[in-house]
C-alpha cells in the first residue's frame, strides 16, 4: 500500500491551495484525489469575473483563478490523480506509521479510492484534508407542488450545461432563489439570448452578494421579487408555466397574490450543502448549522489528523477566503506530520481550550474552539449572521472582557463575516488554574 503524509480529497480551489501551502511548509508525500477529469472544481464552470482580488490583487475569471493554483501544484510536482472517486476514509487506531503494536495517538488513515484505470485501491495517510466542496439543494428538498416535467434545473447544472457543454437549457426562464449562482445565471442566460422573466426569493432579503444584484439583475432590467415563492409548476412533458405567490412573515403563501409566468425553464438557486458523506463515515462530528465538520483553530476535526477547508467546512461566498482557509489547513497538516516525525507528544502541552459561542444573531463560527497553545498570533474567525443588521457591531467577549469590536454598516445572511482575535489579548484574559473558557461572539446595536 502506498503511504502518504497528506491525502487531500478534492482538487477544487480548497484542495489545490491546501496542497501548495502544505508543500511550501515542507510536506512532500502529498496526494490529491479528484473525481473530475480535470482539476479546478467548480471554478471551471464559473466563467464570470470577480475572483482573486484579495489573493492576486487583480480581477480574474473562475477558470483563470483555478489555472493559477493548478500551475502552482504542477510546478511543485504534487501528485494529483484525476477521474478518481474516494469511496471511504477509515482510521486504524491499532497501527501507526512506525508499525508498532501500541495503539497510536496519531493513527494512520486509510483512503479507499476507485478509478476506471486502477480499479479499487487503498492508500495510507498520516493526515487527510477534506476538501470535497458542496452540492446544490435540489427540488426534492423544497416541497414545491406541481408536476415534474423537464426544464427544472439547479442553477449550477444550467451553468455547467451553458458554460462547459454549450447547451442553452431554455428560452423563457424563471429563477427561484437569489443565491449567487442564480443571479449569475440570470445574466448568463440573458446574454445567451434567453428571456429571464423574474427572480423570486422566499426571504425578505437576497441570498446573494449585493454586487451580483447590481451587475446581473439591475443591468439587464430583471426584477427581483423578495418574499415570493413558487406555488405551482405546470406542464407534463416540459415546464409550461410557473406560478409565484407572495409569502407572509411565516413564509406561507398569501392567497390572492398568485401570478403565473409562461416559461419553459425553472432554475433553482436555493442554497448549497457541504458534501460530508465521507466525513460522516469517518466519524467526523458535524455541525447542525453548517452541515460541515466542527473544527478547532487548526481547522482539525474531532478525528486527529483530519483537517477540513473550503465549502465542505462551511459554504463560502468568496473563493479568495476559501484559498486562505485551505492554506491554513495545509500548513497545519504539514505541522502535524512534522510533530509525528519528531514523535512529539500532544499531552505535554498545557491545554487551555476556549470554546467560541455564537450568540444573538451569530449563527455559527469557524473555528468553534481554540487551543491557545496552538493558536497563531492572529486567528480569523468566520461566521454568518441570521438576519439583516444595519449599523451594528460585532463583538467578542472573554471572561466578561471585550476583546474585539468591529462596526458593520450592513450585515446580511448571504455574506460571510469575519473577526480577528489576537492571541496576546486572549492570554491577558486567561487565569492560572482554569483550563476551559467560553468566548462569546455577538451582534450588538450599540
Amino acid at each position: 500500500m502506498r503511504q502518504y503524509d497528506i491525502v487531500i480529497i478534492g482538487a477544487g480551489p480548497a484542495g489545490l491551495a491546501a496542497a501548495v501551502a502544505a508543500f511550501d511548509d515542507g510536506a512532500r508525500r502529498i496526494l490529491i484525489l479528484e473525481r473530475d477529469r480535470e482539476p479546478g472544481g467548480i471554478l471551471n464552470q464559473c466563467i464570470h469575473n470577480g475572483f482573486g482580488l484579495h489573493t492576486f490583487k487583480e480581477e480574474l475569471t473562475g477558470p483563470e483563478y483555478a489555472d493559477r493554483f493548478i500551475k502552482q501544484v504542477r510546478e511543485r510536482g504534487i501528485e494529483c490523480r484525476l477521474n478518481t472517486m474516494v469511496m471511504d476514509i477509515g482510521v486504524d487506531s491499532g497501527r501507526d506509521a512506525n508499525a508498532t503494536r501500541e495503539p497510536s495517538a496519531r493513527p494512520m488513515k486509510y483512503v479507499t479510492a476507485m478509478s476506471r484505470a486502477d480499479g479499487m485501491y487503498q492508500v495510507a495517510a498520516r493526515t487527510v484534508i477534506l476538501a470535497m466542496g458542496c452540492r446544490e439543494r435540489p427540488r426534492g428538498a423544497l416541497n414545491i407542488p406541481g408536476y415534474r416535467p423537464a426544464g427544472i434545473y439547479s442553477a449550477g447544472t444550467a451553468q455547467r450545461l451553458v458554460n462547459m457543454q454549450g447547451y442553452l437549457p431554455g428560452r423563457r426562464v424563471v429563477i427561484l432563489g437569489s443565491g449567487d449562482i442564480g443571479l449569475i445565471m440570470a445574466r448568463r442566460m440573458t446574454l445567451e439570448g434567453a428571456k429571464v422573466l423574474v427572480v423570486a426569493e422566499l426571504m425578505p432579503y437576497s441570498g446573494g452578494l449585493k454586487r451580483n444584484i447590481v451587475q446581473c439583475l439591475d443591468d439587464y432590467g430583471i426584477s427581483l421579487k423578495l418574499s415570493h415563492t413558487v406555488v405551482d409548476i405546470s406542464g407534463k412533458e416540459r415546464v409550461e408555466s410557473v406560478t409565484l405567490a407572495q409569502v407572509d412573515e411565516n413564509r406561507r403563501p398569501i392567497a390572492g397574490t398568485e401570478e403565473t409566468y409562461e416559461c419553459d425553464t425553472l432554475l433553482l438557486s436555493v442554497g448549497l450543502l457541504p458534501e460530508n458523506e465521507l466525513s460522516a463515515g469517518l466519524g467526523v462530528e458535524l455541525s447542525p448549522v453548517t452541515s460541515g465538520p466542527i473544527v478547532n483553530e487548526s481547522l482539525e476535526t474531532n478525528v486527529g489528523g483530519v483537517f477540513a477547508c473550503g465549502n465542505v467546512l462551511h459554504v463560502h461566498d468568496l473563493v479568495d477566503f476559501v484559498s486562505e482557509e485551505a492554506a491554513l489547513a495545509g500548513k497545519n497538516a504539514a505541522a502535524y506530520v512534522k510533530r509525528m516525525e519528531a514523535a512529539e507528544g500532544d499531552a505535554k502541552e498545557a491545554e487551555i481550550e476556549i470554546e467560541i459561542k455564537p450568540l444573538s444573531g451569530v449563527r455559527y463560527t469557524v473555528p468553534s474552539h481554540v487551543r491557545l497553545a496552538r493558536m497563531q498570533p492572529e486567528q480569523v474567525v468566520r461566521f454568518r449572521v441570521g438576519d439583516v443588521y444595519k449599523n451594528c457591531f460585532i463583538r467578542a467577549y472573554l471572561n466578561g472582557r471585550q476583546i474585539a469590536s468591529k462596526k458593520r454598516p450592513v450585515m446580511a445572511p448571504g455574506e460571510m463575516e469575519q473577526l480577528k482575535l489576537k492571541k496576546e489579548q486572549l492570554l491577558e484574559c486567561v487565569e492560572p488554574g482554569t483550563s476551559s473558557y467560553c468566548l462569546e461572539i455577538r451582534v450588538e446595536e450599540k
Partner: protein
Amino acid sequence: MSKRQLICIGCPLGCQMEAEQNEDGEIVSIKGNTCPRGDAYARKELTCPTRIVTSTVRVEGGMRHMVSVKTKEDVPKGKIFDCMGEIRKLAVAAPIAVGDVILPDIAGTGVALVATGNVDAR
C-alpha cells in the same frame, strides 16, 4: 446638488457608496468606498458605465466543446450585446491556453477578447 446611491461591483465586498453631483453633473464627493477602486468605479458608473463581458466560444478539435473567454478590459455597457453577437459567431481550433487572443478588437471597442481557460487538442 443631487445624491446617488451606488453599490461598488469592483469586488465582492460590495461597498455601499454615496456620490454627490452638482448641477453641471460634476462629481463633488464620493463616500463609503473602502479602496480607490470604489472611487474610480463610482466616477465611471456616473459618466460612462462599463463592464467586462465573459462568455464562451466554440472549440473545434478539443477535449472540450467550449472555452471560456472575456474582454481583456471593460467595455461600454451599451456594447455588451454587440460583443455577444460577435462571440456567438466565433469558433476556434484547439489547443487554446489562458490568455490567447481570440479576437483583437471586439465590436469596435478596441478591446481584445481573450481565452480564460485551457482546452487541449483531442
